[in-house]
């Protein structure tokens, strides 16, 4: 392939900010040049569109092995490239759990065979996610794991977490915490507050998250290990992370598009699609998250793409499995924040590319000459409606079904190959 993406708004935030109309030439899987007046054997006019490094998602659930009725490595990565993502990190709460090297390698191998994008597994912190024994962390890292997490559950035992952090530090692998103090949950299915009280659902307060992050940061300071807070949702959480960063602690964090878009009010009609963990919070939390996005406290936007079938979702709210899809709606939800003036377009791109790549030390998220051609083309103006039949994911559990969106990935290249082409513009000439 020798293709010039011509005249787009090219944004690269990995070094000195690059943000101007330019051409990007892709040759044989690499970015040959970035400049003006470039010539290739084929040219595609992308004026009015944003050209960026392929997006990087630190937090997805691809459900393989074991829960392929919800999603698998093929459908999940197709959803990824349809959302502009070229690298996704998949959580270990599969069946069996990714807690040893054979599972890690299985995921890597299967993803290479059927995956539409790059898949970087996250290994478990503890065997079976049970919070008792350490999983084979170094072994999994050798097999391709880029981080460790018991996501879905916290590593709540302080003694075990201390040792996990020390051990992870030995191998330079970040530990990703799902911060949720179990003794404060008390069966809470949504945010504890006025909405939960009104609609009569048990809630869990934001201190469920913040109290664990506060404790963890003490352990991080003690151990010096790389610590990453998954899906921050509460105002106090980002205040704690901001303070920790000021003190120089090796801390990063991510936020989901849905925690930036919806509040607990979205739960008021008992739609199980709005049930997520951590739960959707309040306007005050969203305001704090926006500030933390803008001032650099938050390093990455990660989707926590969590497919569930109707079996888990067409039930009473309190019985429903938590989680919603994220990969295919991330771009429009983030672009909505840009349109509202909460973050700039370049900051949005940074939070979806080099920000997450740096958090897990991934070789991704850069759009530079000579680099691998993982590229996405995003249309900030594209209007579309989320429809179940239009989703690449096997599951359809999103509260945005039927919602009007603005902004969409239209072209995704992985290693210079077309992985997604919404308008069929690059089908054989």
């Amino acid at each position, binding site marked *: 392939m020798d293709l010039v993406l011509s005249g787009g708004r090219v944004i690269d935030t990995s070094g000195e900010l690059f943000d101007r109309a330019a051409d990007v030439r892709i040759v044989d899987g690499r970015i040959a040049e970035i400049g003006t007046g470039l010539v290739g054997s084929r040219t595609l006019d992308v004026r009015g569109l944003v050209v960026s490094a392929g997006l990087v998602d630190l937090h997805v659930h691809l459900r393989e092995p074991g829960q392929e009725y919800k999603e698998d490595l093929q459908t999940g990565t197709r959803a990824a490239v349809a959302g502009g993502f070229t690298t996704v990190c998949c959580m270990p709460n599969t069946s069996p759990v990714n807690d040893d090297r054979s599972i890690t390698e299985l995921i890597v191998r299967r993803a290479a065979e059927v995956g539409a994008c790059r898949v970087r597994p996250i290994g478990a912190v503890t065997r079976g996610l049970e919070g008792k024994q350490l999983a084979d962390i170094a072994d999994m890292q050798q097999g391709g794991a880029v981080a460790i997490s018991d996501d879905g559950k916290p590593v709540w035992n302080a003694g075990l977490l201390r040792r996990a952090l020390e051990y992870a530090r030995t191998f330079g692998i970040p530990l990703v915490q799902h911060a949720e103090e179990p003794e404060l949950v*008390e*069966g809470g299915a949504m945010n504890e507050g*006025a909405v939960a009280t009104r609609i*009569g659902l048990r809630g869990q307060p934001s201190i469920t998250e913040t109290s664990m992050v506060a404790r963890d940061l003490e352990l991080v300071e003690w151990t010096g290990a790389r610590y990453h807070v998954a899906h921050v949702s509460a105002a106090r959480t980002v205040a704690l992370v901001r303070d920790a960063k000021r003190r120089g602690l090796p801390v990063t964090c991510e936020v989901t598009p849905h925690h930036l878009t919806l509040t607990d009010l979205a739960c008021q009609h*008992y739609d199980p699609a709005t049930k997520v963990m951590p739960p959707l919070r309040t306007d005050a939390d969203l305001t704090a998250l926006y500030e933390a996005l803008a001032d650099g406290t938050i390093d990455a936007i990660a989707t926590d793409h969590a497919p569930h079938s109707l079996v888990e979702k067409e039930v*009473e709210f309190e*019985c429903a499995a938590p989680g919603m899809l994220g990969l295919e709606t991330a771009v429009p939800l983030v672009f909505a924040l840009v349109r509202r003036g909460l973050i700039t377009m370049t900051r949005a791109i940074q939070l979806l590319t080099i920000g997450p790549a740096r958090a897990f030390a991934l070789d991704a998220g850069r759009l530079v000459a000579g680099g691998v051609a993982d590229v996405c083309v995003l249309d900030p103006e594209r209007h579309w409606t989320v429809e179940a039949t239009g989703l690449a994911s096997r599951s359809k559990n999103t509260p945005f079904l039927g919602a009007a969106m603005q902004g969409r990935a239209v072209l995704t290249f992985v290693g210079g190959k077309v992985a997604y082409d919404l308008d069929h513009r690059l089908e054989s000439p």
Partner: protein
Amino acid sequence: MSDARVFPHRHLLGIDHLDAADIVQILDLANTFFELGARPIKKVPTLRGRTVINLFFENSTRTRTSFEIAAKRMSADAVNISSSGSSAAKGETLLDTAKNLEAMRPDVVVLRHMFGGAPHLLAKHLDCAIINAGDGQHEHPTQALLDAATIRRAKGRVEGLEVAIVGDLAHSRVVRSNIQCLARLGAKIRLCAPWTLVPRGLDEIGGEITRRATRIVTRLDEALEGADVVMMLRVQNERMSGEQPRFPNTREFSRTYGLSARTLAWAKPDAIVMHPGPVNRGVELAPDVADGPRSVVLDQVEWGVAVRMAVLYLLGRVPAGEAEAA
């Protein structure tokens, strides 16, 4: 019974979707049916040929019997299904069960369920009227309506009355329905419990109208001082499993928040005592008060039948499938 006003709802999912006129319409109609209960022949043919299914996923004697009698007095065919005798134990989902029942063409499904929002799920998927007979800790609208009917009969009005609601506010669906019902009828409400049993935003559940009508206090004497109505709530131990303790023990709770002859003296001399039942005797309500002259607990039960007849009348007459959505 002339009711020129068209009841504008297809379902009764909660008090939250009723306005004062809807509530008064039900209460006025209940008055008519209440008189019927005093006659030797208590049955009217109004709902002849209609089918009412009482679908109960929680233990209940009082409410289920009340709905059953109400349906039978309206000449409807009433079928009771309780969770022990249903497919719930076999792993069938609520929706599966409900869709199977729907295929048998009921006109009304009365649902009691342990989770908030369960009746809303049925209302979304089923083509018949749904009556919420209590969903988790969300709402229990017919309880609030029968409470309002009882107060209206005992006091002649609801507007302007001072109503104290005391006890387990956190786990109570009765309080959530009552706050909204009483506030819309113009009562003033004091909510009384230790902070461990006061859910955040309880006074705002009906928005501005409940916020203005409601006051949260933690001292029983402050709650009862000058009260016209004292409504004691059941301590719902069954809903507290898996939670941290909300108070040390029933002895201390009873001494601090229980209604006895001693503490009832703080209320107005003619204050009435209410309880949605079943009473934890000696915990929230001393036996002598529960059975005493100021207790209207059994009047509540009697009004329960009349109010449920009124609700069935308003929701059950329209043939399933022909009504406009609520």
